């Protein structure tokens, strides 16, 4: 489903975030990307989701070479992914419901059909009763779950999460990880980047060390 072949990412200024890494992730896998901070976890996710382009090497998503893709094609590649960001990236000027509505609007789904899907997604993460709440009034854990609801509402085949439990206490973290596992059980490919190796049971591990894969 996702294939990295000799992928290197060098940022302007010379910093090499990833050095010639190769791996393959099959459909329906649950993969944890671990490593110290600065090891290249976020970069790896950004490259996979076609947010950034590799300096060299090939990245295939569903057989498409996303590194070589034309700019106008990128949005459609990104819609394969549900993205969960380290800093949530929620929109604080609108309700929980409207936050989850955004990916559907982008995909051209509005109205009653959208409402049904949004409520289903909110229900899945246990926030249905807070649909009218503004994100600022939600707790850290709730905000993260709202971000997850937004990521899954368009039913993506792949879920990418960057440090989803980074700022949460252990209880919330376990909840969130359980959520990812439940998505994985219904066939969604899940990639989770985390510096916390303790909650990575029952999944494949991909350990990064200074931009390279450590066995």
């Amino acid at each position, binding site marked *: 489903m996702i294939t990295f072949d000799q992928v290197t990412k060098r940022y302007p200024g010379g910093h090499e975030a990833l050095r010639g890494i190769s791996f393959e992730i099959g459909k329906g896998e649950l993969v944890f990307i671990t490593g110290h901070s600065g090891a290249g976890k976020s970069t790896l996710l950004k490259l996979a989701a076609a947010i950034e382009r590799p300096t060299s090497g090939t990245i295939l998503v569903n057989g498409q070479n996303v590194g070589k893709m034309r700019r106008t094609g990128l949005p459609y590649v990104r*819609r394969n992914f549900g993205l969960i960001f380290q800093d949530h990236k929620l929109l604080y000027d609108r309700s929980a419901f409207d936050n989850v509505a955004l990916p559907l609007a982008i995909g051209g789904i509005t109205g009653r059909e959208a409402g049904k899907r949004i409520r289903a997604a909110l229900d899945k993460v246990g926030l249905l009763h807070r649909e009218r709440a503004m994100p600022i009034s939600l707790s850290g854990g709730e905000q993260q779950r709202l971000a997850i609801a937004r990521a899954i509402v368009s039913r993506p085949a792949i879920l990418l999460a960057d440090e989803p439990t980074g700022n949460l206490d252990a209880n919330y973290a376990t909840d969130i990880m359980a959520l990812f596992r439940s998505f994985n059980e219904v066939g969604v490919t899940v990639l989770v980047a985390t510096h916390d190796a303790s909650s990575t049971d029952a999944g494949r591990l991909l350990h990064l060390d200074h931009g390279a894969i450590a066995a």
Partner: protein
Amino acid sequence: MKAWIAAHRQALLLVLKKLHMAPLANLIMIGVIGVTLSLPAGLYLVIDNLRTVAGTVGTEPQVTLFLALDSTGTDIKDIEQRLAMHPAVRDFQFLGREAAWRALKEKNGLNDTLADLEKNPLPDAFVIHAKSTDPVAIEALQQEFSGWPHVEHAQMDAAWVKRLYAVLQLGNKAVLILTGLLGFALFAIIGNTIRLQILTQREEIEVSKLIGATDRFIRRPFLYAGTLHGLLGGGVAWLILLAALYIFNLSVSDLARLYASDFELQPLGLDASLALVCGSAALGWLGSWWAVSRYLSRLEQS
């Protein structure tokens, strides 16, 4: 197709909601656009009305021969023959002094003044249209006619009309220049308004791009906003002109009555009105396109 309509409906609804959320700021914006546009449109209106006035006067150059007051019937016949045989004359018309006197009395409300005159001061006259409309040829003709016997005076009547036309031509150029300059100002105003809107929605745009929004999706509501601003601003300009015209016409009709005329300033025609409103909407569209494209290309680089 259905999805396309839905997408546009969605963008339009979003824009209308935003307009509704900040009505005062948007009204002021639309007012500024309206005032800006009303300047060149107003100038155009004035020039257009002047042209109408000039058109009723007649634009064809003509030469009028005034005969000496003591000319006899045979003198007139003689000149008539000369004119009929002249190769450069297309047609001519004889205006007898009595007929001209009566016509003058009936016209233009000058009756009171004329009544004071005891006898007819007008000479017999010929109004002549030349075959050529070239001012130089007509001037030569005028020179020639003034040398004929019994011709007191030969006059080119078209001179002032031509001067007026030259002035109108100048006015047209002024309208063009003003339209160009203020059109650019409008483009900048709307572009800047949209840019500010973009800045307040920076996060939304960023997130939308990350989760797979096309540039077109991001651009669409802003294009609607810019076009709507332009459209409404054009409408406001049109209303300003209408109001100004109404106020002007109150005085113009007073003035015209004094000259026993029913002249009044005419409003913008249908095509000029459409050009005003559509042009304004187009500028709004362009301004917002420019603002969003600039922002998106910057986002791409970062």
